[in-house]
């Protein structure tokens, strides 16, 4: 038996799980407000742009988004298996592909700000 390569993804999964556990619910609450038509201050273009323009802001956004993506992707891989789909290699390519794409988009967008 060979040692598994899952630690790469599990490390991201675990870090992402912790980050999302701390920040995602309150972010969802804020977007919920936005969806309901409240206009929180954060969602002014200027405020957000200002935050994202700072290198620290960029780093925080990158961290939260990327870790969330890889957390969700890895768990999705397991969940798909749990629902009875036995094509782990294909599933892994797809879910990690999605996470990779999201990561790339985030980097590109952040560079444009």
């Amino acid at each position, binding site marked *: 038996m060979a040692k598994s390569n899952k630690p790469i993804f599990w490390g991201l999964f675990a870090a992402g*799980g*912790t980050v*999302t*556990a*701390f*920040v*995602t*619910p*309150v*972010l*969802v*609450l*804020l*977007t*919920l*407000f*936005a*969806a*309901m*038509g409240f206009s*929180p*201050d*954060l*969602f002014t*273009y200027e405020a*957000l*742009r200002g935050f*994202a323009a700072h290198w620290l802001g960029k780093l925080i*956004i990158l961290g*939260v*988004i990327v870790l*969330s*993506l890889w*957390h*969700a*992707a890895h*768990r*999705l891989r*397991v*969940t798909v298996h*749990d*629902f*009875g789909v*036995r094509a782990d290699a294909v599933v892994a390519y797809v879910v990690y592909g*999605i996470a990779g794409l*999201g990561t790339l*988009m*985030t980097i590109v*967008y*952040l560079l*444009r*700000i």
Partner: protein
Amino acid sequence: MSRKPYVREVSKTTWFLSQPRYKRYMAREVTCVFILIYTFLLICALGALAKGPDAFQAFLHALRGPLGVLFNLAALVATVYHSMSWFDVTPQAMPIQRGEEFVPGNVIVGAHYGAWAVVSLIILIWGI
């Protein structure tokens, strides 16, 4: 040979219906779907932010409406469930031994809930 062990097959697709704890587990796992979609929502927001004020307004506009509210509500439930299920098991995954004794699990869990509340409040106050 008189032996003939009987193997009980487990359904690969419906196994989790057999026990409440398996259902709770699957509910926890499914939270990742909401987190994934929501994260892409954030990426879209980031894209709009990069494009300019008009694009961002359009994004906010698209977010509004019953569908947006419904998704965010569902995502809220899912992410809160994720947080709780995540924090509740931290003493198992990361036990802390001080001297001879282990720090009681509920202390570790409590500390996480406390930190979660603080982080959430800061973001909330800052956001509103």
